[in-house]
């Protein structure tokens, strides 16, 4: 079972879902699957137990990307930050002007699996 499949399985009870098919890789944890902020406490706990890596909420909110000078303007990401996010998450959905809140709400199951794989590769 690869990271994505194992993660989908891990999320089922936490999100009150029954079938792995309901947890699509492109599903946004908050917007599509109804995860609330407090649910991430349990999600990170189970990820740590099952994958051996620690994830911080800042990585999910992707506010880490907003910490360098000029990366966020008035709460919205710059074109450079969007390009970095697209490269890091192998995506094209990040665009200039997205808010940090929108980044959190649209964070997908595949994005989470990407972070897990990245962390495991440097263990």
């Amino acid at each position: 079972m690869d990271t994505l499949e194992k993660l989908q399985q891990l999320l089922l009870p936490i999100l009150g879902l029954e079938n792995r098919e309901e947890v699509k890789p492109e599903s946004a944890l908050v917007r599509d699957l109804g995860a609330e902020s407090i649910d991430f406490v349990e999600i990170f706990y189970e990820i740590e137990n099952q994958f051996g890596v620690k994830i911080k909420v800042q990585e999910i909110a992707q506010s880490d990307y907003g910490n360098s000078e000029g990366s966020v303007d008035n709460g919205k990401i710059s074109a450079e930050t969007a390009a970095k996010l697209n490269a890091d998450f192998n995506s094209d959905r990040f665009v200039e002007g997205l808010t940090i809140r929108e980044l959190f709400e649209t964070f997908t199951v595949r994005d989470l699996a990407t972070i897990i794989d990245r962390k495991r590769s440097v263990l």
Partner: protein
Amino acid sequence: MSEKSQFLKELFQERRSCRNFSKRALPSNIVEQIISMAKLSPFAGGRKNWGVEVVNSSETISKIAVAVEERLNASAALMERESAPLFLEYGKSFLFFKEAPTLLIPHFRVSPTMRALLRDRVTEELLQWERENAVKSISAVTTFILLAAESLGVESCYMTGPLIASDTIAQILQLPKEREIGALVPIGYCK
């Protein structure tokens, strides 16, 4: 008293626990209506930590009844000779559901949030508090089920006695391992 309050008061007054169900079948989609109303219930931790299992199969209902009877008998066997018959007499009330056409079984999951937050510093008191939040919440869901059924002209009974065999019932229903049964609510029509 407002019209809405009056309606609710009458609903509360008219609701009775049915202890003698007939075999009369329920109209189609009545269960869906009851559950859609119960979904409006409050619940600590939100909608995703509870659900309702619907049992329409008389075979499954019989299996549950057998499991409850077996557990009653096993418990009675551990009692003093004078007490056992009293307990078994009382235990007959745990089986009111067995003639009902449908069972609604609210179930819940205790989210391990405090353990995740506190790790090895979590206390028994906090774990108990977290579990009790879920137990209290599923009681609200069950109450909504009873009132929704009553409003639709369907009779019901709020049963927790059969949960003496809740582990076996969960196996019969093939509930996920993290789910616990909160109550057993037969619905239908009294004889």
